[in-house]
């Protein structure tokens, strides 16, 4: 089974989705249970994957390599390394929770909802595992559609606007990436006489610096929108606010990671020469995102919007770590991706919990909830703290490593980024206070039921992971380490290959980084 475990991971949700279609639509309970079962399946497979993963290797494992479209040398290549492993796990971990969380939420067109959700999972997993650029692009785009339906059909009052905006915004970037992918492959084909979209081959393409910059731009636009990097973030608040809870969780928890993952897996190692010009720009944008996202989050009247903007800020951290271009920063960035997936996912689940009770997300409608819902409050607190990077919880590990990495490449960047941890506390605690503390003034909030068993089952695993990953991050970091170092090594090799002039310029930039 281990030879094709990745395919099992990727396609088991799709299988579930198809099987789900066969269940009669009025058997809601059956559909829910089936959906849960089918979402647990990939999780189990991914656990198998983890258990069989050789943490000492930095290359791709469990590689499946089958011919697909020989005309262009396109192959079905999937493989996992320390970078993608946990993102896969994150995806398979969150999806069952989302399914469970939607048991109460989604009343209408239940079957279709889970169908799209499972399809989305296949798309995400495929995008994380694909090693063929064509395949990657296919999965990348395939994700778009189910998410679009999830927002557009089961979303809030402005859902159509949000859904269309989401699709068009995302497509805008990815279509240019398609051009860049084809260009890259065709240049490679010219040089080597052989068409291939195999990432591992393309890593070694010989491109001119200008070409690299253009291609990098093409790729990074797609990823930057997905991340979303300031100033390409404006689709996010709308999408989050309008999406149903489950959609927001997946969107924030996994989908956004694809952007940062894309940078790490594709844009950065494929075009190292572009980084000379690009990385200061991206560091700057990341910093703006960190601070700007935090500031704007603070003044949001809507809980989901607040969390959405907080994502902008958090992913700014991730980007900062990535573009520090060193081992520590990148490891921190990956870790932070997981953290953000957990904590923001949990925040959206939490917002969903109160939304399902009160049908409002306006912060002003709440206040003093703690007394009514203590268990909820405690979990909310933990998640909030994770989000603001309290040491001992997962968020800190990522943030600290990112800062450490960033500090190496630019001290100024680190200094500015640190302000993000202050501002992060400001908006999160302000929000927490306004929702949970103070007198219970709004009578509608009286008698709010505390978490049900199902809701606890949804949230508890996340909280457990938040704590565990804060206390004992080693198992995760250890696995990432070889994969990240091989990425770094690739950059180093490329840097050495570059003209000495550029190398000198790089050195100089490092010196004036103060």
């Amino acid at each position, binding site marked *: 089974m281990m030879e094709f475990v990745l395919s099992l991971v990727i396609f088991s949700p799709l299988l579930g989705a198809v099987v789900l279609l066969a269940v009669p639509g009025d058997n809601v309970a059956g559909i829910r249970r089936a959906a849960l079962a089918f979402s647990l399946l990939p999780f189990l497979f991914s656990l198998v994957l983890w258990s069989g993963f050789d943490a000492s290797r930095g290359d791709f494992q469990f590689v499946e390599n089958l011919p697909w479209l020989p005309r262009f040398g396109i192959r079905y290549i999937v493989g996992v390394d320390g970078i993608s492993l946990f993102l896969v796990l994150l995806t398979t971990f969150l999806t069952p929770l989302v399914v469970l969380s939607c048991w109460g939420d989604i009343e209408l067109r239940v079957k279709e909802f889970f169908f799209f959700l499972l399809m989305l999972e296949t798309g995400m997993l495929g995008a994380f595992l694909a090693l063929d650029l064509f395949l990657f692009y296919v999965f990348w785009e395939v994700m778009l559609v189910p998410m679009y339906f999830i927002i557009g059909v089961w979303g809030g009052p402005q859902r159509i606007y949000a859904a269309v905006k989401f699709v068009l915004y995302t497509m805008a970037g990815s279509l240019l990436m398609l051009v860049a992918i084809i260009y890259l492959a065709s240049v490679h084909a010219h040089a080597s006489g052989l068409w291939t979209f195999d990432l591992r081959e393309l890593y070694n393409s010989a491109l001119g610096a200008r070409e690299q910059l253009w291609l990098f731009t093409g790729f990074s636009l797609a990823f930057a929108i997905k991340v979303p990097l300031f100033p390409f973030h404006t689709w996010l608040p709308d999408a989050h606010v309008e999406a149903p809870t489950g959609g927001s969780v997946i969107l924030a928890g996994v989908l956004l990671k694809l952007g940062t993952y894309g940078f790490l897996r594709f844009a950065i190692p494929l075009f190292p020469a572009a980084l000379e010009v690009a990385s200061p720009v991206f560091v700057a944008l990341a910093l703006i995102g960190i601070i700007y996202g935090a500031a704007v989050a603070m*003044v949001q009247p809507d809980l989901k919007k607040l969390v959405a903007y907080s994502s902008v800020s958090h992913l700014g951290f991730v980007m900062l770590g990535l573009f520090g271009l060193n081992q520590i920063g990148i490891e921190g960035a990956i870790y932070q991706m997981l953290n953000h997936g957990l904590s923001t996912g949990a925040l959206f689940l939490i917002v969903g919990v109160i939304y399902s009770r009160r049908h409002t997300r306006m912060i002003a409608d709440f206040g003093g909830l703690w007394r009514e819902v203590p268990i909820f409050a405690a979990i909310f607190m933990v998640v909030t703290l994770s989000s603001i990077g309290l040491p001992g919880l997962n968020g800190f590990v990522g943030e600290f490593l990112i800062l450490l990495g960033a*500090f190496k490449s630019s001290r100024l960047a680190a200094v500015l980024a640190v302000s993000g941890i202050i501002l992060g506390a400001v908006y999160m605690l302000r929000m927490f206070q306004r929702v949970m503390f103070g007198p219970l003034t709004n009578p509608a909030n009286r008698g709010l039921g505390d978490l049900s068993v199902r809701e606890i089952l949804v949230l508890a695993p996340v909280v457990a992971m938040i704590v565990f990953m804060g206390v004992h991050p080693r198992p995760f970091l250890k696995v990432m380490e070889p994969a990240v170092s091989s990425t770094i090594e690739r950059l180093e090799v490329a840097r050495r290959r570059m003209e000495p002039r550029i190398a000198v310029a790089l050195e100089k930039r490092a010196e004036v980084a103060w």
Partner: protein
Amino acid sequence: MEGDGQIIPFELLFLIPAFPLLGFVLVLGLRERLGRAVSVIAPGVVGLAFLAAAAAFYRLVSAGPGAVLTQHLYTWISAGDFSANITLRFDPLSAVMALVVTGVGFLIHVYSAGYMGHDECKPRYFAYLNLFTFAMLLLVLADDLLLLFVGWEGVGLCSYLLIGFWFEKEENASAGKKAFIVNRVGDAGFVLGLLLLLWSLGAERMSLGVGALKEIAPSLDAGTVTVATLLLFIGATGKSAQLPLYVWLPDAMAGPTPVSALIHAATMVTAGIYMIARLSFLFALAPITLAVVAWIGISTALFAATIAVAQNDIKKVLAYSTISQLGYMFASLGVGAFSSGIFHLMTHAFFKALLFLGAGSVIHALGGEQDIRRMGGLREYMPVTFWTFLIATLAISGMPLLSGFFSKDQILERAFASGHIGIWAVGLAAAGLTAFYMFRLLFLTFFGELRAAEQARHHPHESPPVMTVPLVALGILAAVGGYVGLPEGVGWGDKFGEFLHGVVGSFAGHHLAAGTQILLTGCSIGVALLGLVVAYFCYIVQPGLPALVAYRLSGIYKVLAGKYFVDEAYDFLIVRPYFRLANVAWRIFDVGIVDGAVNGAATMVSVNSELWRRLQTGRVQSYAFSFLGGAVVLLAALYLAGRG
């Protein structure tokens, strides 16, 4: 200040923090189901922690000077060349801190069982308190600075939670938030300091273990050390409420009074001092930083003392007093007298905890009244409280033979001895003010007539034994705690300093002549007495006088009573502009410009679409016209290109 002497693995070290953690988990997990048992479990685990700490202390002392107990639990983070370990370290400094934290903490836990006896949220309270103890122990026992930072933030969290414990009142919640955020500002500096330190260590061994750091410190670049220590000090000013980040502490009094005693007086707020002492080997390499530390400290001491003079809330007075005393400690560290700082930290823990608990007892007795103008004459109603409070007041004022006298005097003396005459002078002035405002507090609270409101009048009664016993215990400590650090040449001398020698080194200033020493002591006593006398005159002999003075010097009084309007300034200069900016960023930049551009592009396409589709008139000849035009243009273009 050499490296570690004898490193002894001690496998039971983890028990010290583990007990409170266990308590936290138990209390939180079982909550109401525990019933009254919570009052036993929660203090019990801290007591056990104290015993564990005592055992470790015994082991440490018996191992002889220079020994360090350690326990490596596991590697916490490792990425690239960087690693952080969960390693506990029990050296003399940790020992002092651990004993103070568990000891005083235990007493306060016990006291809390009485104080919070009727609060329905008692389990939550004790859970937080246990968690706090755990975090604080982590802080003081951490070998790795990053682990220290975990404790550092952990105590901050508990402080946040406990300040806002009665969260139904908006102010309490806000105060908690303020504490957290202001601390975060300091923490940002702290983190930057850690980052700088880490990278300056070189790529081979990026780890912040104290022992390792100590060995490598002398080889570091001086400029880097200065910057790094300054950044770390920013962290300390946040946690230990120094200028300019002290503003959260007075507000923090919103929490339950035992919390104020434990967290905001005895333990957490001293974390900054502890941290600097812990890194004394580093700070000692940065004279500029030390000077900054000293001057910030002593300025804070005076500054806070002046504010305390004009406060009427019993806890606020104590809060500013705490800030002031912390300032002393920093001043002490700044002049290189690290052990004195820790010494004062310890005695302060005793008497300030006592003061707070006493205040709590008073507040408890008066049904929540905190305004000293509506107290008075309580001496008769609550004798135990009064007497213990008196001891603490005398101690903090530096009256001879009580703990505060020795520690504060040591600081002033060493400031003088190290040539920091200015610091000595300011410290002396602050000491006078301290005596004044403390006795003012004492007189207004316990002497004269009871000025309480009608409904509170019937209440005054002594607190139950569960509260008074800790008072007494602390009273004893406040009285005799100073004898471990006598002046040089007196009795057994500075045993305390000797004990800490291996960690913080010994004081490097001049040895003062006996005469000078006596003179300085005289000055201190004199100033303290002066304060006492003025307070006596103002509040016992001539009760109308303060009002008159306040009226005459209304300008100054308003500034002092208004706490120099620092909060307002921050609000005006930072908070409001930030909010306004954030709003602008959102509404104008985000929604207006960025999203406007996106939507604008879409609108442009559809507007064009609407516009151009009108060309499709439905008349076949217009289509033919387009056709013909296209053909003509195409031909023309080809001809032109053919020519060119």
